[in-house]
Structure formats: structure tokens, C-alpha cells
């Protein structure tokens, strides 16, 4: 596959959060993206969620910006309601046949107004609301769906023709047929997501028979404001507000009864979230969670669990219940459970929520079969720990829950990682299939009086039905500066936009006002159109007379029209004094600096080099490898040292990567695209220019201060044990006691180090395999072998490893015995003291951040979290970015993680970095601040207020770094002398809006 005939496009299968993230990364790195989804709109499961842990952000609020970006990104082509039929060809040049299912609604024309659905006579179960409410045969998946277009469910529809009769946009296409089309792409990313376990299969819990037993995804819909119960927590049997709600964990996970020998990783944390959010909605609710092991292992999850226990009073009962009984009359539920000290208690509950696990989707398995992708025996996509985003077929990558249960941060990391691999394969074909529209030169409007054009929209009946639009047009025509005014049925439709360009040019308009829906979704669309007409995009203003006027004053037409007149008049008032804003472009040094030569640093360096950009890799020690040098075998049986050796080999031999070992960073200056870093290598200093920074400083094993560590050489850490076993230590016949959570999950360090449970089980198995007669005990607080690692825990027990649980207030004791060490603890089931004569005690110490993080943080002006790890821009949706543009994060510097997860995050950081250094230009925001030096007294108030350090004092005057400025305008509002103004939102412009609102005549 020579470089020439590589195709510069990528097919992304699955429009959930994974598909959206990888599409945006690829589209912003100069590749054409075909984003395909089997349902009528993208959004996937995350769209169904109410809030997300651990920040309790509303899921839709953090996802909507990505939805809108994907919806209107010029390089992303949305192919909804479609399936992949077949894939031919090889990596770099695939021919993919796609079947676009008949949707019976023209996506371009439909504006999502919903008049058709209001009258459709058919009742159908709303799958999106998990059956809690009904939808019609013609439906929109959810209010914020992208594309905002209805679809007809052909099985349910009786073809009565009513919707076509009602549709004003004439968007109904009854003779729509499935379309077969073929696209040519260089690589493919599979992220079709997962299916929730169907809890009807667990008959003993009564889901499907007892109305008050709901699944967790159904409870998400109940909690959601756009859900069937409008976010009121109610129960289905009588619409009452439940007081006692029970969450049942591990429904369809860790259960051989239904063929699930794995843990679904996220249910513990989402159950806590649902309990906490329910409690916030209704303080009288008493949530109880029945669980086996509380697996809150992610970043910030442990303190989330503690807060739920201490602040919200969520009750945690450690018992997997046997069944749920229901009183057929009152539909109240009874649950019988065993307390930790062996008592049997029967308790009444008003409602029960089954925390269902993940299963693979049937049609994803078929697709994988058709594409020749290997699946593991549980039906998920088979991946290797060496590269968790590669499938068994060259050129086809995977991310998200299709390769195994995982939460949203890990999904987003894998999505960016898959984007890195997918684009790395075809980096030579970058920018070949991406056309930048040729735009006419911008009209120079200086010195010419305002010639304002006003376009008022009916939006079918959404505005026209409640606001006197023709009257509004006449009113606007009379206002000063207005030379043209018209109304149209749908301003945003394709044909109206074409006429827009002609109208502007014919009437020589130099200001455009559109009175229609919300600028949030439609401003960029209209700005792009007027730019095509030769006008600067910022000579434009919108009046929101739908979402904030006609839709909310439906029953009072006169006041709605009056308010619309005010809004139009305000826009016109500002229009006369808006100015064209130049699009500032910065040039970018297309190279990267990677701080830290551990596994993550090396992988991200290699990934960036694969994209064709040079990398400077800074390593404090003399050789590369970091903590991985002390790991000999991984939980998934990967040859760790072998992989480390050939990774170091690749880094050393890669011409684009310059390794600076024994080096310290002295100073980092500059900003995104234009960094200058001084690095000191044994006394001589060199300066490196680069465009982006990836922080991969890793983390270290802490030194335990308990259990006689350091006082008796038979007390070692898990890493020491690995070293000993690698050197062939003879443990046959010996008794080994392992103690978990040494320094983690404590008052002074309230986080879980995530890897130690699996590490202990891995080492215990290694001991048992080498010396079957050795006795191994593991003293734990919660076994957190999440995901497919659960099978290791199974095998360890089967090999006879004894697991004993201890609680924080009754920690085990280690004392010197006659010949061995005596480990004292208490059996959690028998409530009986146990003493283990151990020849060796192995501790699982907490993983703590690199001591040097604070200094790197100051240099890069990036913050640390309260545990000392780096604080990313957003824990859920930007886990590898920092809030400061151009700086990225990978590996254990973010938080403790497994080798596979570190590799995924390293690729992700590389992909995010390439979105910047993949082009030599970087378009900054247009509405940035500017300083009038004459008025500036150098008081520094503005600099103190700026969260992005985009405005600073230079020789007594405030100076704005346009590259860093995000355009929030805080500095302008703080300035004492009016020196600082925000372009597009100048004081006089805002005042003109106020004046426009108040006085009838301008």
C-alpha cells in the first residue's frame, strides 16, 4: 500500500460519545469522516443518561456542544439510520457498502417541529424512554437529537397519510426506499456501543412483572428532566413518590447463571450517582444499595462513594439478595437479606432499581462477523493489551464499550486513541479529501453607512403560529438603517440559504439580522452563509423569537408579537454599530515536547512521529521505561519486558524522536503553537521550539509505614515480589499473606490506586502455578478486579487462594512470630479471629504522584487536584486535555492505571495534540478582548480575573495573547477605565441593545 493511493477518510461506525469524539479529533486533524449510526439520530446511550459521575454534570449539557459540533462540522458527513453491509479492501483503502434504511422523512427539510407526532394515531413504546412512556409511529429520538429530524417506524405505521397532511415543511417521503451506497475510506473505527443486560432474564427480581422494579437505565430516564416523569421520582404502580428505594448490584454481571463471568465496571458508581441524585430531587428518599464489592476505582470515585455514605446518608448493605417479593395488591416490595453478622432481615421497599450490566449487541456481533473481526467468547471485540484500540483486522480500530464494559472517561480516551491509530495509518493522505470552501474576498464596509437586511422566520407554525410575522416584517422595514426585510417559512432550509446570498448581493446589504430560533445552534450556519456572500461573518445578529418567545408564550399571541418586536428592534439597534472582526490566524510550530520517558511518554511520542511530526522526549533518569521496568508480567499475560524493550528500541531508532535523558526542564515559555522550552542536560542548556506539550511524568509506588515494613525484610511490596519471583525465589510450601489498600482509601489519601487488587491476584496465581503447595491469603477491603479481570479473581479462588475481607476499623496486624510472621485478622463471614503463620507478607502500597508534578505544573501553568495528580480540563469529556490550550496529559500522571489503559490514553493525548500541530495555522476566536493602551493604567485587575492567563501586564500595560483568549469578556467587565473591550460585545454595543429594548422608536 503505497502512500499515494491511501484514502484520506475514515469511517466511524457508531454515533455515541465514542464515535463523536473520534470523529471530531479526525475532522480537526484534516481527515474526512463518515459518521454512521444505526438509529435516526446520534447520541447513543449517553443521551439517555440524566447526570454523570463523579461530577454530577447533566449528561446532555456536557454532550450537547459535541453533538452540535459534529452536526455542523464541514469535514464530518452524518449517515444516520444506516448499516454497514460489507467491507472490502485493505488497510489504507477500504470499499464499504452502506445500506441507508428508508427513513420516510427528508432529513434536510424536516425542522423537528413535531406537529406530525402530535396527531399520529399510533401508540408505540418509546425505546428511548425505556418503555416508561409512549411515542408515535413518527418520532424524534430525543428533543436535542442531531440531526433534528423525525423518522417513521415502518412496522408500527399504518400508512394513513395524516403526517404528510400536517407537515408544513413537506418533508414526508412515503415512497422512500433503502439506498445502497459505497464509500471509500482509509481506515475504520468500530464503536457501536453496548446493550444493557435484559433484566427480565433474572426472573427472581421480577422485572417486567412487578411495575415498581425498574432497571437502572429506566431510572436514568425517570431522573431526566426530558424524561417521561419530567425528573420527578415516581413509581409506575400508583404514581406515588417512593420513600425507600433499593438498588440491586450485579444484575447480569459476575453471574454464571446468565453466562456473565465478568464485571461491568460502572454499575457500582452509577448506582451511587442515581441514589445521590434521587436524594437531591427528593430529600425524603432513603436509598439503600445491596452490593458484593463496592468497585469505585476510577479517578475521584472513592471520595464520591465516601460523600454518598457520609453526606447523603446512602445505606450500603453488603449482601447479594436472593429475590424480590411483591405484594400483588399494593405493589410494595419485600427484600430479605443477610447482614454481615449472619442475621436474616426482611424489609419493605417502595421501589427497586436493578443495576444492569453490559452485554455485547447482537448486530455488532453480526457486523464484526461480516468484517472478519475476532470477538472474545463474551461477544465483545477481542483486543490486545499492547494496543487496546486495534482489532484483529489491519486498518480497523475499536473504542468504547464494544471492546468491553467501561465508563465515559475511558471511552473518550479510547476514542481519541483510536483516532490517533486510524489517522496514523493514513497520515500521508491528510487534507486530501477535505475541501476548504473558496470564499470571496470580504467586502470593505468601513465608511459606508449601515444597510441592514432583516430576515424573519415562520419556522412552519412554530413562530408563525403565535407571532404576527408579516406585521413584524412591516415594523422592521420602518426602523432606521433597514433597507430590506422579508419573511420565509424556514430560513435555515437549504433553498432559503441559497436565496440569502443573492438577496444580500442584490441589495448591497452590509448588516444581516435573522429573527428565528436560538443562535446557539444556528448562528454559525447563517454566519457561514453571509460569509459566502462576501460579508464578514460578524456583521450579523440574531433575535431569538422562537425558543425564548413564541414557544413559551403560546397562549398569548399579542404579548408574544410585542416581545418579538422588541427583540428585533434590539438586534437592529446593535446592527448599526457592529464592526467586522478579522479572523486572527497564528502560525504553529508543528512539533511536540513530551515530558516523561515512561511507557505513556514513549507511546505518545511514537504516535506523533507516526503522524509525521518531530518530538522531543525529555526523561529525568538515564534510561527510558519508568516504573514499567519493575513489572515482569501483566494481568493479561503480555510479555511486559519484551514489549518495553522493543518500544524503547522503536523510540531510539525513530528519526523524528530526539531523546533527552538525564534532562530537567528549566523553563517553558510561550503559548499554544509557539512554545520555547529550556532543557538542562548535565550542565549544558538547550532551547527547544515546539507547538504542544504532553505531560507523561507517571507516578511512583509509595513507601508503606505500617505492618513492620522496613523493619523485617520478609515484609515486601508487590513490585518487590515480582522482582523476587523473576529471580526465581523458591516459595514452594511457603505461606504468603498479601495485604491490600496499604495507604490507599485512607483519611489522608482518599483515593483507590486501582491496580493493586488485580496485581495481587496476578501474583498469587503466578505463585500457585509455580508452587501449587504454597498457601496464599489475600486480605482485602473490596476486591476491585473490574471488567474482564474478574476472571483472574475466579481462577485465583479456584486455585485455592483464600480471600479474607477486613474493614478500615479492624485492620490486620503483623507481628514477629517464632519463626515466621504472625498476621492477625478476623474472618468476615465467621466473625472469628484468624492467625496466619506467614513466611512472607506482601503489601499493596498506594501509588502516589511524582514529587516533581508541582514544579512542572507551575512551569506550564496547569493545576493539580487535591491528591496531587494533574487536573484535566473535564474529568468526563476532556480527560487528556488541560484547560490551558495546547497542553495534554497521559499515563499515571493523570491517575493510577493499567498498562493497557495507559497506552490508550497515550494514543489519545497524541491524537488531541495532532488536532493542533496537524496544520500550520490555528484560527483563534474572533470575539477576543483588545486593549486601548491610551486608557490602560496598568492596574492588573484584568490579569487577575482571567482564568486562562490570556491577558497579562507587559511593561505596565495590559496585553492580550489572542491565542489563549477564549472570548468570555470577564476582563472587559473588570477593567476600571474601559481600556479593555471585547470585540463584538463592546460596551456601546451592549448599551445599544438596552436602549433598543426600552424605547419604541430608535
Amino acid at each position: 500500500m503505497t502512500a499515494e493511493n491511501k484514502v484520506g477518510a475514515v469511517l466511524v461506525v457508531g454515533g455515541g460519545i465514542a464515535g463523536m469524539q473520534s470523529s471530531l479529533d479526525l475532522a480537526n486533524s484534516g481527515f474526512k469522516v463518515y459518521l454512521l449510526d444505526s438509529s435516526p439520530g446520534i447520541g447513543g446511550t449517553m443521551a439517555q443518561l440524566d447526570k454523570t459521575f463523579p461530577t454530577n454534570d447533566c449528561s446532555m449539557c456536557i454532550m450537547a456542544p459535541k453533538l452540535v459540533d459534529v452536526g455542523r462540522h464541514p469535514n464530518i458527513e452524518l449517515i444516520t439510520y444506516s448499516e454497514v453491509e460489507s467491507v472490502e479492501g485493505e488497510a489504507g483503502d477500504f470499499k464499504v457498502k452502506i445500506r441507508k434504511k428508508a427513513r420516510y422523512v427528508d432529513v434536510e427539510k424536516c425542522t423537528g417541529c413535531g406537529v406530525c407526532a402530535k396527531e399520529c394515531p399510533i401508540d408505540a413504546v418509546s425505546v428511548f424512554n425505556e418503555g416508561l412512556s409512549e411515542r408515535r409511529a413518527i418520532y424524534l429520538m430525543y428533543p436535542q437529537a442531531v440531526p433534528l429530524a423525525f423518522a417513521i417506524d415502518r412496522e408500527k405505521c399504518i400508512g394513513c397519510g395524516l403526517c404528510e397532511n400536517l407537515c408544513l415543511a413537506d418533508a414526508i417521503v412515503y415512497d422512500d426506499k433503502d439506498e445502497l451506497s459505497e464509500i471509500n475510506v482509509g481506515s475504520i473505527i468500530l464503536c457501536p456501543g453496548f446493550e444493557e443486560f435484559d433484566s427480565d432474564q433474572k426472573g427472581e427480581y421480577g422485572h417486567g412483572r412487578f411495575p415498581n422494579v425498574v432497571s437502572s437505565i429506566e431510572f436514568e430516564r425517570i431522573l431526566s428532566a426530558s424524561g417521561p416523569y419530567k425528573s420527578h421520582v415516581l413509581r409506575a404502580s400508583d404514581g406515588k413518590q417512593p420513600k425507600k428505594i433499593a438498588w440491586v448490584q450485579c444484575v447480569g454481571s459476575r453471574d454464571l447463571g446468565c453466562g456473565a463471568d465478568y464485571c461491568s465496571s460502572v454499575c457500582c458508581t452509577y448506582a451511587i450517582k442515581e441514589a445521590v441524585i434521587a436524594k437531591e430531587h427528593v430529600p425524603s428518599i432513603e436509598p439503600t444499595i445491596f452490593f458484593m464489592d463496592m468497585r469505585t476505582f476510577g479517578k475521584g470515585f472513592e471520595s464520591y462513594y465516601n460523600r454518598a455514605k457520609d453526606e447523603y446518608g446512602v445505606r450500603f448493605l453488603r449482601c447479594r439478595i436472593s429475590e424480590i417479593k411483591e405484594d400483588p395488591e399494593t405493589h410494595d416490595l419485600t427484600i430479605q437479606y443477610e447482614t454481615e453478622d449472619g442475621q436474616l432481615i426482611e424489609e419493605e421497599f417502595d421501589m427497586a432499581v436493578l443495576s444492569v450490566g453490559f452485554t455485547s449487541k447482537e448486530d455488532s456481533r453480526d457486523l464484526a462477523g461480516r468484517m472478519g473481526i475476532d470477538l472474545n467468547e463474551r461477544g465483545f471485540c477481542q483486543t490486545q493489551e499492547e494496543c487496546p484500540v486495534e482489532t484483529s483486522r489491519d486498518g480497523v480500530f475499536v473504542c468504547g464499550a464494544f471492546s468491553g464494559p467501561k465508563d465515559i472517561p475511558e471511552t473518550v480516551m479510547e476514542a481519541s486513541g483510536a483516532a490517533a491509530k486510524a489517522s496514523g495509518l493514513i497520515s500521508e493522505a491528510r487534507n486530501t479529501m477535505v475541501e476548504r470552501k473558496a470564499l470571496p474576498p470580504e467586502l470593505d464596509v468601513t465608511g459606508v453607512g449601515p444597510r441592514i437586511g432583516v430576515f424573519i422566520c415562520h419556522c412552519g407554525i412554530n413562530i408563525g403560529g403565535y407571532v404576527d410575522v408579516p406585521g413584524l416584517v412591516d415594523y422592521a422595514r420602518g426602523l432606521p438603517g433597514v433597507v430590506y426585510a422579508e419573511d420565509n417559512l424556514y430560513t435555515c432550509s437549504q433553498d432559503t440559504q441559497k436565496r440569502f446570498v443573492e438577496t444580500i448581493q442584490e441589495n448591497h446589504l452590509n448588516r444581516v439580522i435573522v429573527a428565528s430560533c436560538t443562535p446557539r445552534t444556528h448562528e454559525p450556519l447563517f454566519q457561514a452563509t453571509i460569509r459566502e456572500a462576501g460579508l464578514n461573518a460578524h456583521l450579523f445578529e440574531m433575535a431569538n423569537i422562537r425558543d425564548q418567545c413564541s414557544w413559551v408564550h403560546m397562549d398569548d399571541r399579542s404579548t408574544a408579537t410585542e416581545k418579538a418586536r422588541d427583540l428585533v428592534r434590539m438586534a437592529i439597534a446593535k446592527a448599526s454599530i457592529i464592526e467586522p472582526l478579522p479572523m486572527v490566524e497564528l502560525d504553529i510550530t508543528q512539533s511536540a515536547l513530551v515530558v516523561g520517558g515512561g511507557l505513556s511518554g514513549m507511546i505518545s511520542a511514537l504516535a506523533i512521529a507516526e503522524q509525521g511530526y518531530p518530538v522531543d522526549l525529555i526523561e529525568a533518569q538515564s534510561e527510558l521505561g519508568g516504573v514499567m521496568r519493575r513489572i515482569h508480567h501483566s494481568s493479561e499475560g503480555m510479555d511486559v519486558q519484551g514489549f518495553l524493550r522493543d518500544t524503547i528500541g522503536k523510540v531510539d531508532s525513530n528519526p523524528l524522536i530526539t531523546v533527552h535523558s538525564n534532562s530537567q526542564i528549566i523553563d517553558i515559555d510561550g503559548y499554544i503553537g509557539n512554545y520555547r522550552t529550556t532543557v538542562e542536560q548535565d550542565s549544558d542548556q538547550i532551547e527547544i521550539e515546539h507547538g504542544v506539550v504532553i505531560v507523561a511524568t507517571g507516578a511512583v509506588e509509595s513507601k508503606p509505614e505500617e505492618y513492620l515494613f522496613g523493619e523485617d525484610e520478609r515484609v515486601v511490596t508487590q513490585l518487590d515480589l515480582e522482582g523476587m519471583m523473576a529471580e526465581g525465589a523458591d516459595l514452594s510450601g511457603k505461606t504468603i499473606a498479601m495485604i491490600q489498600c496499604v495507604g490507599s482509601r485512607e483519611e489522608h489519601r482518599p483515593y483507590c490506586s486501582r491496580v493493586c487488587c488485580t496485581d495481587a491476584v496476578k501474583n498469587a496465581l503466578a505463585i500457585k502455578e509455580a508452587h501449587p503447595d504454597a498457601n496464599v491469603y489475600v486480605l482485602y477491603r473490596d476486591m476491585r478486579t473490574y471488567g474482564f479481570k474478574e476472571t483472574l479473581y475466579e481462577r485465583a479462588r479456584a486455585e485455592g487462594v483464600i480471600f479474607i475481607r477486613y474493614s478500615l476499623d479492624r485492620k490486620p496486624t503483623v507481628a514477629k512470630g517464632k519463626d515466621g510472621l504472625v498476621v492477625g485478622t478476623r474472618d468476615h463471614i465467621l466473625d472469628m479471629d484468624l492467625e496466619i503463620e506467614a513466611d512472607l507478607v506482601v503489601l499493596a502500597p498506594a501509588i502516589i504522584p511524582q514529587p516533581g508534578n508541582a514544579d512542572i505544573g507551575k512551569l506550564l501553568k496547569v493545576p493539580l487536584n487535591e491528591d496531587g495528580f494533574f487536573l484535566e480540563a473535564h474529568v468526563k469529556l476532556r480527560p487528556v486535555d488541560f484547560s490551558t490550550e495546547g497542553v495534554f496529559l497521559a499515563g499515571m500522571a493523570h491517575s493510577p492505571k493499567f498498562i493497557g489503559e495507559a497506552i490508550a490514553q497515550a494514543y489519545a493525548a497524541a491524537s488531541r495534540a495532532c488536532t493542533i500541530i496537524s496544520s500550520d495555522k490555528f484560527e483563534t476566536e474572533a470575539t477576543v478582548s483588545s486593549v486601548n493602551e491610551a486608557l490602560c493604567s496598568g492596574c492588573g485587575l484584568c490579569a487577575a480575573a482571567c482564568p486562562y492567563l490570556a491577558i497579562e501586564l507587559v511593561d505596565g500595560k495590559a496585553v492580550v495573547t489572542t491565542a489563549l483568549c477564549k472570548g468570555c469578556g470577564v476582563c472587559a467587565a473588570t477593567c476600571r477605565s474601559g481600556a479593555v473591550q471585547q470585540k463584538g460585545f463592546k460596551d456601546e454595543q451592549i448599551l445599544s441593545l438596552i436602549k433598543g429594548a426600552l424605547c419604541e422608536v430608535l
Partner: protein
Amino acid sequence: MAYEPKLLGFLCNWCAYAGADLAGVSRVQYPPNMRVIRVMCSGRVDPLHVLEAFRNGMDGVAVLGCHPGDCHYLTGNYQAERKMDLTFRVMEKVGIDPDRLLLDWVSAAEGQRFGEVITDFTERIRELGPLDAADAGPKAAVGEKIASMDRIRWLVGKERDMVDHGNVYGDKLDEAELKDILWNNIVNEYNRELIRSAIRAGSPATVPSIAEAVEMDTATVFKYMIDLENAGQVHMMDIVDDDPRYILVGEVSE
């Protein structure tokens, strides 16, 4: 004084009305209780007309058209059949005895038979007795509300087309299935109206109190409350000791 039922008759100009005239010419005697309205075709009779008749105190209504196949306007009587089928169903649901409505075919030549049809119908209504206006009035009003709904009139209007010629996709529909969908819509709309009137009677109302008033189980009432809330006709005002209380919204008072 013996009860004399008040009857209304819609006679189609070409057949039934002509049949009636023939009865006159042949001096056929029949009871005087029915007041006749001449319509050009039995298909002209709108369910709302029939329900309006009952609302204003009629005890019985007859709709007489041409025998199938004889209709002067080819398919008018088939339309009448479907419209009256809707009316029967609505009457049954709102609680007016469907026997009070008669749909029959009388040809222009059946003077004698016309007399018999009128006599039998009059006796049938005499047996049934008067329709208590206080009780039937509001029921008929609810019936009218249902019969005037867009989707129901569309379904009835398109029924023949979809069964005989095929729907928008060209496949012919099974009549029984279509009837179920129609009945389902009538039942749902009626129940929603029941619930609305229960709230009207005592607002704000809780699900258990509504369930009792309309004699439905709480789960079904709650399902309807979700539909009503989504349609913006009902709003949850507050929650008092775990029972949400609902009020009517956007009710443009008659």
C-alpha cells in the same frame, strides 16, 4: 300520558327520502314521532350531528340511506357505514346506549318497508325509555369532543381507502386491525377526558383520588397522567406527603 319518544331521522334524498314519499303516496301509516332532515346522501351525516341530537334531548336517531351499491354518489353509503360505526363506538364508550341509533337502507321503492322501519324503531326507543338529558348531555358532549379529533376523523375518513386500495406504501390493511387502532384511540381519548373531568371536579387531584373517581387502577391512571403532562394539558403542582397533585393547564373553558 304514555311516553312518546322524540326521534330524529336523516334521510338520503335519492333513496330513503323517496321511500318515505312513496309511503306517503301509498298512505302507509306510521307513528309521528320522527322529525326528518333531508340530506343529499347518508354519507353527509357527520357523527357530530348525531351526538349533537342526543345532547339536545333526542331519544333516538335514525340514518337511512341507499342499499349498498345503489348510492347515487357511488360510495356515499359506505362512508355513512364507517361514520356510523365510529358513532356507535363513541356512544358505547361514553355510555349512551348504541341501540338508540339506527343505520339502515331503504330504497326509493320500499314505501311499505319505510313505514315498518320507522314503526319498529319507534317501539324500540319507547321500550328503552327517555334519554335523561342531565345524564346524556355531558356524555354526548364528551362524545363530540372525541369524534371531532383530527386523528380519529382522519382514520375514519381514510379507512375505506386503506382497506380497499392500500395505504401510502401501497399495502392493503386488515380491517379488524384498523378497527382496533380506532377503538384504542377512542378509549384513550375517553379515559383522558374522564381524568380531566375528575381533576376539574376536584383540583388539585392525586392519582389515587382520580383512580377512585374514574374506577381505573392507579397504574393506568398514572400512565395517562404522563401522556397528559407531555401534551401540556396537566401540570404537577406539588407533591404532598409523597402524592403528586395535578391541576389542569391550558384548559380553554368552554
